[in-house]
């Protein structure tokens, strides 16, 4: 019987790949949507002596972007945020995930910092609590500090205009 095991494993993998072609993983449900943002208390990249908590989300619509210097897609996405953050006057909070403080600081200094605050999540604690799959990922949090939306992967302008921007606008208007 145990000789069937490799075949079964392989068939499961093949089936998964095959089935994967029909599934739309954009619709990954997040258990966190509709719930208050989990608690954290972490230093910031700009000033490692300053600690922030989830209280910074209160009173304004926050765009929370998870990134890292080792993440190639994040480096590509960075230019998009530089543009959007100024254009729409976003309250954009970064989370520097599993990274090196020096490298993160150098990167932001070299190419520009689109974030109002950038949280330094060296151990990936915040990432774990927020259920981050990989970088980049983006959350939208409303004025009451409740997570309203979660986007896995990098943002493209089309998706920004069709989904994220209208959502932010409606949350801004206090709906």
């Amino acid at each position, binding site marked *: 019987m145990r*000789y*069937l095991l*490799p*075949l079964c494993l*392989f*068939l499961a*993998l*093949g089936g*998964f*790949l*095959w089935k*994967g*072609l029909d*599934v*739309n*993983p*954009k619709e990954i449900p997040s258990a966190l949507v509709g719930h208050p943002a989990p608690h954290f208390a972490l230093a910031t990249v700009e000033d490692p002596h300053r600690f922030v908590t989830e209280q910074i989300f209160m009173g304004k619509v926050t765009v929370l972007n998870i990134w*890292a210097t*080792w*993440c*190639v*897609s*994040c480096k*590509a996405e960075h230019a998009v945020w530089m543009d959007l953050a100024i254009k729409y006057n976003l309250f954009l909070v970064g989370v520097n995930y*599993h990274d090196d403080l020096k*490298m993160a600081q*150098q*990167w932001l200094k*070299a190419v520009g910092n689109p974030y109002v605050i950038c949280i330094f999540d060296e151990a*990936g604690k915040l990432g774990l609590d927020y259920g981050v*799959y*990989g*970088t*980049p990922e983006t959350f939208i949090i409303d004025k009451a500090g409740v997570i309203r939306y979660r986007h*896995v*992967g*990098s943002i*493209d302008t089309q998706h920004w205009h069709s989904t994220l921007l209208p959502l932010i606008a409606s949350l801004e208007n206090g709906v």
Partner: protein
Amino acid sequence: MMPELGLFSLILALCLAGLQWFLPGLGLLKHNTFWMQSARPIALGQSFFISVSFLCLLYAFVQDDFSVSYVAHHSNASLPLVYKISALWGGHEGSLLLWIFLLSGWTTTVSLTQRHLPRPFLTRVLIVLGMISFGFLLFLLATSNPFVRLLPNYPVDGRDLNPLLQDFGLIIHPPLLYMGYVGFAIPFAFAISTLWGGDRSLPFAKWMRSWTLLAFSFLTIGIALGSWWAYYELGWGGWWFWDPVENASFMPWIVAIALIHTLMLSDKRQIFHGWTLLLAIVVFALSLLGTFLVRSGVLTSVHAFANDPKRGIFLLEFLLVVVGAALTLYSFRAKKFTNNTKIYLISRETAIVISTIFLVVSGAAILLGTLFPLVFDALTNQKLSVGFPYFNAVFIPFMIPVLLLMPLGPLSQWGHNVLGLVFKKLTWTLIFALFLAVGLPLLFAETVPLGVVTGLGLGLWVILGTLKWLFDKIQIKGSVMGLSKGALGMFFAHTGIAVLVIGVTLVSYYQIEREVAITLHQSLDISNYKIIFEDLKPIEGANYIGSQGHFLVFKQGKREADLFPEKRIFVVQGLRMTETAIDPGFFRDIYISLGEPLKEGGWSARIYYKPFVRWIWLGALMMALGGFFSAWGRWLK
């Protein structure tokens, strides 16, 4: 004319590939020797026509025949000859043809040199190879014909080859990588033939060993070249990114190491036949998966996959059929190949088996990390990085026990050992390794992180342990000349791994990467070097314009090197490229790449100090050398 000849040859090769499994297969069923014997001439004929086809495409490239669509898309009249040749495998269709061409080369070698094998066994091997070739030829002809013409209105000149690819490393990187990938078809075919025949008394492991070693060595060089190319060409100073293309070649590589060692168990001790045969299947399955990942377009462009789903689906189906059939055969026949020989806990057998399990599990973890973002990417057009925190976290811990076991295996005996005796041989090795692992960094570096002691200690443990083994061996044999090629091969391969581990450890912990804004005549200190931005002047090349910086490298007041990094703008495609300047050294590289000119004056630049980075590729080359040595030694037997 020539492209048509090439296409016609391909079609003939497809027919012969069909015959190569049909006729001898019938012969096996009917016990007809004549039909069985037909496998060899048919295989040679098939290889002949594939070579003709390959040469026709090569001819079209050399002659700038832009009426051939593939040539027009990947070459250009002003390219130097070497790049015209290497442009053949610069795109999808050509690299598949290269794949098939190399497979036919391996098949030819097998059918010419392995005539001493029992006839039914060799026949089955050639049938399996014929089936694989048939599948790929069908794929090439049905979805990716490289000889399609652009008639009657063909372009006068072709598109340029991507400037990133106009590089020596990339001329030889794909053929070597493919030599490795494709070469694993041979142990696979041998394994299938063994399972199919069901005769466990055949010395199949002995027959498979040199083929596996050869393919592994080619793959090692291929991977090392890719890493070296990424290091100096991409301008980030990284030598390994854990990106899916790299992982696609790394997974078969890591499992092939396990296979090489279980083959030894099968050959010398007649144990673990089932595990060996399974690994031979898995290695080739991973090679096919790698080809699927790289060639389906899933990786190069998400959209290519969506635009031409035929290719991806064909390859996926082929993968499922080949591997599915192989594993089904395995599940029925593997039982015949198991025996209940007692294995002693403290023995060379145990050391090898445990290491192979760790190697396979780490391969599985990499597979998981590679496939998840790819499936995600292909479906949503979104990029997601699992990134190296994951890969490092799953890979490094598995390698520590493997490295610990590496000297223990050779220094213990087959069968029963006394643990105390094995350790007694290695007491001084252990003490020296620990002493040096702490002492050397204390002497030369300011900080000694635990990771350095671990990595350096493991590397030294392997080097010193392997040296100890070599000296013992020389003492027994009486002289260095008495050493077998296999022993030398093992020595090079194991010390190669250690050199690589030391290189990786030291460069990871002691490298200094500065991303700075620097103005003319400004200087910068990095490690104990002083870098001065001396000059900047405009340059103009054949198909680009740009700027060239001049940097001086001083060490303690002494001028060590002049470096000229460049920023090039390729006019035709509007691409901006960084030409890195490196001052290489055995103990350190100084690495400078120019970024962009800054608004407030000056340039952004990456200035890196990379200690021991060359040891990574040196170690890989030593492993490949060891593999070739062992294969040679086995060949002579």
